[in-house]
Every structure is written in structure tokens, then in C-alpha cells.
């Protein structure tokens, strides 16, 4: 026992020793000191202003300013993203730009950007209008010079609707009339409106016009050559140019209203060809001017955005840090003189010197006269749990923490989980072919560690990347278990020598009825390859795997109970050792330890005893003669003794502890009612919220008794149910093996039987897909989940309380991971 005490302590086994520190900052150095502490990342501040709302705290205005700045920064990021620019990597971190200066700069940039955007929009709108006008001028001109013109008309891409064909001859005559009588006839004769409308709305637009004018109109349309940028939806839409010929003022009003409804833009097109050409030239020149202006504007904006973008990450980090510092400062209290800020925090004892050094540095940098005071306080509250993990142990710690964070300094199951979790996974997964596939995947992730670690991954890939070392161990153990089960994609091999079985005689006549015979020594490593494909394979393997599951289960549960012993020893709880550990060990091992022993003896002696019978009748009729189920001499007596021990163990773990606790409590707090004077001597003027104040616990006997009863019943019933729960190791292993066999025999072998190359390839492809998706992905997840459950429930409920809270220090590096 002393040897165990003298062993060096394992850091991962119990959480780091923490201390509660009180810090007193002079006001001028508070900001700098907190900033340095944030860089160090080893102190967790307690919120002393818990009951205050965010608006009642001291530094609320600074926090608001930081929030406003981060909003501006997000706006910039958005704009950069919309403009399609890549955010460039920031140059080496420059020294502190002060916050006020940054604020002013950000406000300027925002103003500038908003203005640029507004101007750009206006320009774009005029550009669109001019473009539409130009297109209409071109096309409408074509409409107006059709057929009636002397200078031969080139066939345009007129897409006239069917019914207008009938009117065409009329129009021609009308137009001819109109041309022959220029001037006033234009006012009384046919008038037209030309415009442009979205292609999708064109048909309904036309119908509406037809109905409104009762058919007294001619509608010519032609699709626009280029797409136009629609300002509202910001994408290119197809438009159609139309010209409506009508007569009468009423019709004009109606048509204009309908155009408005449909969002069709109408433009005045002069009928005179020469004027048209003039206007077209003007429009074209203005268009090119606008284009250049627009381009120049875009370039300017891109330049501004790029210059912002290069510093964006740095600014964002700065603002995040400042906000975090002010949030932390909000947790501190002003003391009576209002010249100091007082704070409390948890830190590991090993970090004390580093923290003191950081505080001294802050005082020196500020050139302040007064240093920060740092001293240790006692506390009643339970400290946070802090495990120092590296990239190999951290996923396992996260797996354990996902169920519950360890109580301060209790035994950490992660130490054993590092090996037993991949091992139990492998027991359920056991196939060395699949194991090699998993190994390749894990090695891929590990060799690309640096590259994958820096980029942002999707949530699934992130989980996979985080668990790459778990995957590595899982695959290595799977290869080992696969060799033991002798399964390579369900095919057995004779790697370790020849099989131990052969035919009874040379003709092998009764190999299909009575079977082979074991002639030589046992196959040295793993399951004999002769079993695969035989009719009695499943009965043998089922028996083997079920017994194996029981053996592993009893071992792991015993490990759990032993860990509870070490916990009790560490916390000096001899009551737990005597009245919980001992009866628990006795109960579990008298029943299920005995079963494991029977299993091993049966294997070693080759007896035909029925273990179900033995176990059940041990309870039902313990004094009966065992007969043919006798495995060793003295079994009957031993069974009676074990049964009695187990029966005694149950009240042993149920009754004594509550009564002894009650006695201890009454002894300890015997004189408490006279001690209230002592309590008021404490200086409780400063920190009303401090963790130092002790309180007298009242002892509720019935509560303690019921708690103990629940605990004992849980253990007793759990002994049976947890042992049976380990049978999932058998069940999943069987499922994996059967799936693997089916895919191999019914897909690959079947396809390979044909001589056709195409069939073989198809069969190979189906086999590959089925293996990859069902066996490698689904079965991996399934075995992962069940191994996890076995650890969380069956192993950990023997010793783990898991009701602690995690150590979350104030750290700038944690900030970078948090947001996003």
C-alpha cells in the first residue's frame, strides 16, 4: 500500500490541484493586467456580479462600443464577400492600435462604403435604363420600318404573335396612310408606345392589353439580345421589347397604367428615322461614359475593400479581445474606496508563479506605482476540474466529459478508456481486412494533420478529424481482433499453421454427418480456420463469444469497483471502503466472478456441465447434489458459501452506512448551537459573494437512508443487468461477421462465378460499395456507440460521480475557437 502511495502521481488520473485566488487591481492597471492574464489563459474568473443585469454593470458602455465595432466589421466582411474578393491573410501582428483610433477609422470606412454603394446603385440604375432605351430604339425602329418602307426591309427577328398577322395588312395600310400624310395625321391616327418588359410576363401583358383595348391594338414584340441586370433581384433576366400600336387617348391611358402594373418601362421613341439615329448615338455615348464611370467606381470600391480586408482579421481579433476584457472587468467588484477592482478566480496551483509574473509585467508596463495583489483564499465551493491533455489524450477526455465532467480530483476513467474503448470497439468489429481500411483512413487524417487543422471543416469532418487518434487505436486493435477471429473480409486464413481438425478417416465419409476430429494441438493463435463454413460454426462461435463477453464484462466491472476503492482511499473515506467497496466486491465476485471461474474451468477440463443449470440451481436448490454438472471437487460447498456471502453482502451495503453517518454528524456538530458567536467574528464586510462562507449542513437521515438504499438496489440489480449488457459484444460481433459473410459469398463469389467480365466488375463494385458504406461506416458508428455506452454506463457507474464542472480559463486563444 505504501508502494502505491510512493508512486509518482499521474497527472491524467486526478485533476490538477486548484486554488481560489483573490486579486486586487488598481484601476489604472486593471485593463492591462486582465489583458496579460488573457494571454496566459490560466485563470477562471468568478462572476462576482452575478445578480446584476448586463446594463447595471460598470463597463457596459465599453462593451456596447465593442459590439458596435464588431457589427461594423461584420458589415465589412459581408461586403468583401459580396464583391467576391478573397480575404487576404493579415500581415504580422502590429502593436496595439488603440481602441478609440480604431473606432474612428471603422466609422469612416463604413460611411465611405455606404456612400459608394449608394452611388453605385444609382449609376447602375441609370445604366440599365439607358441600355433598355438603346435596345428599344433599335428594335422599335425595326417595327416602324417594316414592310411599308421603300428601302428594302431586312427581315428582323420579329416574333409576332399569330393574331397580329391578320392585322398586319391593316397596319401596313395605316402606316402608309400615316406616312403619306405626315404631321397632324400622327396625332389623330395610329400612335404607339414602345417599351421593355420581362420575358416571363410578356404573354399575360399582351393578353391584358388585348382585353383592355378590346383588340384594337397591334402588339409587336421581339426578344432583347442581351440580358439586363434586374436591380431588385440582382440577377440577369431576359426581357422582351414591345411596341403597342393603338389609337385614342383613352387607350393610351389604359396602356400606360397596364405598363406600370407589369413593371414594363416605356420610353419615348421618335418616329423620325433621323432623329432616332441621333438619339441612338447620344444614348450610346452616354452609355459608354456610364460604363467607364461604373467600372471606375467598382475598382475604387474593390481597392478600399482589399485594404480593409488585409487588416480585417486583425481588427476582429482585437475587438473580440477588448470585448472579452471588458466582460471580465465587469465580473470584478469595486472596493469601498472605489480605487481598486477586486476579483476572484480559480487557477491551478502550478500556475501561480506564471500568473504573478504576468501581473508584475502589467504593473511594470503601465509604470504604475502600486502592484496587483494576489493571494490565496480558502474556499468551501468545489473547484473546477482541469486536466492537462495533449492532442492524443484530449479526444478521450472529451468522450468521458461528454457524459459528465469529473468531480474535483476523483479518478479519471479516461486513463483506462484510452485502451479499453478501442479494444471493446475492436471486439465488436473484429475483421483485419476492415481494420486495415480503417487504419489507412486514420493514417490519412494524421499525416494531413497540419493542413486539415488550419482549415475550417464541415461538422462531420471536424468530428472525424478530432477523433483521428481514437480511430488509429481502433483500427490497430481491430486488426488484432480480426487476426484472433481469423476473418479477413470474412475469409479465414492459415497464417499461424495448419488447422487442428481433420477427417476421421481417409475417405472423409462422415465429415458431413458427424464432423471432423481434433487430432493435433490447438491452433496457436485465434480461431481455427476449419470452422468457417461448417454447419456447427455458429453454435461454437456463439458459445465462445458469449462467454468472452461475460469474462470481459466481469473484468471491467471489477476494475470499476477497484477504482472506487482508490477514490475512497484518496478522499480518506474509510466508511466507503468498509461498507461499500467490500460488500460490492463480494457480491459481484461471488456471483459473476464465480460464473467466470466456472467458464474457465469448463474450458480447461472439457467437461459437459451445463452452466445455466449450475447457476440457476445454485439459487433455487443450493444443497442439492450436482450430479453430472460437477466441475470440480468441493463445488457444492463452495457454492453454498458464495451464496451466503452474497446474501450477507446486500444488507452490509445497505444498512450500516446511514446510521454511522448519523452518529458522526451528531458528534461533529454537537456543540454547534453554542458556536454562533464564533461565526459573526468573521469579516463579512467585503465580499458578500465569496466562496469562503461556511454553512452548517443539516443532516436529513431519511434522505441519506433512501439515497443509500437506491444506491444499493442499483448495484445489486445492476450486477445482473450490466453483466447481461456486455453480451452486446457478442451480438455486434456476430452481426458484423454475418454481414461480412453475406457480402462476400452472395455478392463477390456469386459475381466471380460468371465468366463475363462485366458481371465480375459489377459484382466487385457492389461489394466495394456495400463494404464501404454498410460495414465500414455504419458498423463503425454502431460499434463506436455501443462501446461508448458500455463505458459510460456499465463501467463508470461503479465509481464515477461526474458532477464537477470544467475549468474554463479566461483565454484569448479560446476566444478564437469560440466565435465563428
Amino acid at each position, binding site marked *: 500500500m505504501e508502494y502505491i502511495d510512493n*508512486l*509518482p*502521481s*499521474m*497527472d*491524467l*488520473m486526478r485533476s490538477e490541484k486548484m486554488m481560489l485566488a483573490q486579486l486586487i487591481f488598481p484601476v489604472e492597471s486593471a485593463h492591462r493586467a486582465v489583458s496579460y492574464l488573457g494571454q496566459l489563459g490560466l485563470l477562471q474568473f468568478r462572476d462576482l456580479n452575478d445578480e446584476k443585469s448586463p446594463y447595471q454593470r460598470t463597463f457596459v458602455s465599453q462593451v456596447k462600443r465593442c459590439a458596435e465595432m464588431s457589427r461594423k466589421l461584420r458589415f465589412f466582411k459581408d461586403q468583401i464577400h459580396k464583391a467576391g474578393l478573397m480575404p487576404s491573410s493579415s500581415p504580422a501582428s502590429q502593436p496595439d492600435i488603440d481602441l478609440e483610433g480604431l473606432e474612428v477609422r471603422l466609422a469612416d470606412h463604413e460611411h465611405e462604403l455606404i456612400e459608394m454603394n449608394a452611388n453605385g446603385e444609382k449609376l447602375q440604375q441609370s445604366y440599365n435604363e439607358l441600355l433598355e432605351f438603346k435596345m428599344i430604339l433599335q428594335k422599335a425602329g425595326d417595327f416602324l420600318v417594316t414592310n411599308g418602307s421603300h428601302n428594302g426591309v431586312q427581315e428582323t427577328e420579329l416574333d409576332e404573335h399569330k393574331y397580329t398577322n391578320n392585322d398586319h395588312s391593316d397596319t401596313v395600310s395605316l402606316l402608309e396612310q400615316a406616312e403619306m400624310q405626315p404631321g397632324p395625321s400622327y396625332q389623330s391616327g395610329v400612335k404607339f408606345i414602345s417599351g421593355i418588359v420581362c420575358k416571363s410576363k410578356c404573354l399575360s401583358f399582351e393578353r391584358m392589353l388585348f382585353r383592355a383595348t378590346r383588340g384594337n391594338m397591334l402588339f409587336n414584340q421581339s426578344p432583347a439580345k442581351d440580358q439586363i441586370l434586374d436591380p431588385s433581384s440582382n440577377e440577369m433576366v431576359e426581357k422582351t421589347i414591345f411596341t403597342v400600336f393603338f389609337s385614342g387617348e383613352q387607350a393610351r391611358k389604359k396602356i400606360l397604367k397596364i405598363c406600370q402594373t407589369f413593371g414594363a418601362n416605356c420610353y419615348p421613341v421618335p418616329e423620325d428615322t433621323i432623329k432616332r439615329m441621333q438619339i441612338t448615338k447620344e444614348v450610346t455615348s452616354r452609355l459608354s461614359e456610364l460604363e467607364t464611370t461604373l467600372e471606375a467606381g467598382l475598382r475604387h470600391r474593390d481597392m478600399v475593400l482589399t485594404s480593409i480586408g488585409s487588416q480585417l482579421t486583425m481588427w476582429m481579433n482585437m475587438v473580440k479581445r477588448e470585448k472579452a476584457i471588458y466582460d471580465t472587468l465587469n465580473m470584478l467588484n469595486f472596493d469601498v474606496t472605489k480605487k481598486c477592482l477586486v476579483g476572484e478566480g480559480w487557477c491551478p496551483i502550478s500556475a501561480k508563479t506564471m500568473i504573478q509574473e504576468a501581473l508584475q509585467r502589467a504593473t511594470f508596463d503601465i509604470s504604475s506605482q502600486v502592484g496587483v495583489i494576489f493571494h490565496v483564499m480558502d474556499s468551501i465551493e468545489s473547484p473546477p476540474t482541469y486536466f492537462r491533455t495533449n492532442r492524443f489524450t484530449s479526444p478521450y477526455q472529451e468522450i468521458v466529459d461528454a457524459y459528465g465532467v469529473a468531480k474535483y480530483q476523483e479518478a479519471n476513467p479516461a*486513463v*483506462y478508456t*484510452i*485502451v*479499453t474503448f478501442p*479494444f471493446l470497439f475492436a*471486439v465488436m468489429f473484429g475483421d483485419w481486412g476492415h481494420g486495415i481500411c480503417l487504419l489507412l483512413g486514420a493514417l490519412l487524417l494524421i499525416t494531413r494533420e497540419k493542413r486539415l487543422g488550419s482549415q475550417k471543416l464541415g461538422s462531420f469532418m471536424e468530428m472525424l478529424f478530432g477523433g483521428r487518434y481514437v480511430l488509429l487505436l481502433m483500427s490497430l486493435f481491430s486488426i*488484432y*481482433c480480426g487476426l*484472433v*477471429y481469423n476473418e479477413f473480409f470474412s475469409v479465414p486464413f492459415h497464417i499461424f499453421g495448419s488447422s*487442428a*481438425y481433420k477427417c476421421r478417416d481417409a475417405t472423409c465419409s462422415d*465429415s*458431413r*454427418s*458427424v*464432423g*471432423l*476430429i*481434433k*487430432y*493435433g*494441438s*490447438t*491452433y*496457436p*493463435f*485465434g*480461431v*481455427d480456420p*476449419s*470452422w468457417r*463454413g*461448417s*454447419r*456447427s*460454426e455458429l*453454435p*461454437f462461435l456463439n*458459445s*465462445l463469444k458469449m*462467454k*468472452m463477453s461475460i*469474462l*470481459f464484462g466481469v*473484468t471491467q466491472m471489477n476494475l470499476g469497483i477497484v477504482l472506487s476503492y482508490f477514490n475512497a482511499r484518496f478522499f480518506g473515506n474509510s466508511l466507503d471502503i468498509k461498507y461499500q467497496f467490500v460488500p460490492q466486491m463480494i457480491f459481484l465476485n461471488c456471483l459473476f466472478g464465480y460464473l467466470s471461474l466456472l467458464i*474457465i474451468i469448463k*474450458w*480447461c*477440463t*472439457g467437461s*459437459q456441465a451445463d452452466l445455466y443449470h449450475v447457476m440457476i440451481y445454485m439459487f433455487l436448490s443450493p444443497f442439492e447434489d450436482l450430479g453430472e454438472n460437477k466441475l470440480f471437487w468441493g463445488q457444492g460447498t463452495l457454492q453454498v458459501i458464495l451464496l451466503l456471502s452474497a446474501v450477507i453482502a446486500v444488507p452490509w451495503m445497505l444498512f450500516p452506512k446511514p446510521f454511522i453517518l448519523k452518529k458522526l454528524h451528531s458528534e461533529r456538530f454537537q456543540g454547534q448551537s453554542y458556536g454562533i458567536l464564533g461565526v459573526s467574528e468573521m469579516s463579512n464586510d467585503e465580499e458578500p459573494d465569496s466562496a469562503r462562507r461556511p454553512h452548517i449542513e443539516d443532516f436529513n437521515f431519511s434522505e441519506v437512508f433512501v439515497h443509500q438504499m437506491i444506491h444499493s438496489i442499483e448495484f445489486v440489480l445492476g450486477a445482473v443487468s450490466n453483466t447481461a449488457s456486455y453480451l452486446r459484444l457478442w451480438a455486434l460481433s456476430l452481426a458484423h461477421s454475418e454481414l461480412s459473410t453475406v457480402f462476400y459469398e452472395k455478392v463477390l463469389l456469386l459475381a466471380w462465378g460468371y465468366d463475363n467480365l462485366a458481371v465480375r466488375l459489377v459484382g466487385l463494385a457492389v461489394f466495394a460499395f456495400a463494404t464501404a458504406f454498410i460495414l465500414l461506416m455504419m458498423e463503425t458508428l454502431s460499434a463506436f456507440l455501443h462501446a461508448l455506452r458500455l463505458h459510460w454506463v456499465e463501467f463508470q457507474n461503479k465509481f464515477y460521480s461526474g458532477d464537477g464542472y470544467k475549468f474554463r480559463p479566461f483565454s484569448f486563444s479560446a476566444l478564437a475557437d469560440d466565435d465563428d
Partner: protein
Amino acid sequence: MNSMIKSEQIYLDRIDRQLSFNVREANEMGFLVTTLIFLVVGVIASLVTRICFNQGPSTNLLHLTLIITATVCCWMMWAIVYLAQMKPLIVPILNDTE
């Protein structure tokens, strides 16, 4: 005639027992030898880890714990499968199709 057959029977029985004893011995020897191999592999692994990854007493203890756990798990797995096959109660009965 009968006595000859009987003596032959006794002789064959003795050989049979001798053979089965040899087999039994071979079984047990195989078990012990392989268990020793596991033990030796475990010791070598811990020594190699102590030499190559020496990172302070606490980490060394952690490594040792991991290696011992892994060795015990792997040995248990092998031992269970070996023991189950030492004296089997059923034998492989081949399929009709083979």
C-alpha cells in the same frame, strides 16, 4: 485369440492415452509459451516507450499503465479463444455443398 485382441486393445489404449497426454501437454505448453511471449512483448514495449518517449515521471506512469492495460486486454482475448478451443465439445461439421 481373445487374449491377443485384449492385449492389443490395452496396447492401443495406452498409445491413445499417451498421444492424448502429449496433445494435452502440447496444449498447455502452447498456452504457457504464448503467455510468456505476451509478457515479454509487454515488457519490451514498456522499455521502448521509457527510452523513446521519456517525458517526466507522471507521463511515464501513464504510458506504463496504457501498455499494461493493452497487453492484458490482448492477452485475455487470445487466451479466451485458445482455451475455448483446447477441449471442444463440438467439432466442425462440413456443409453439404462443399
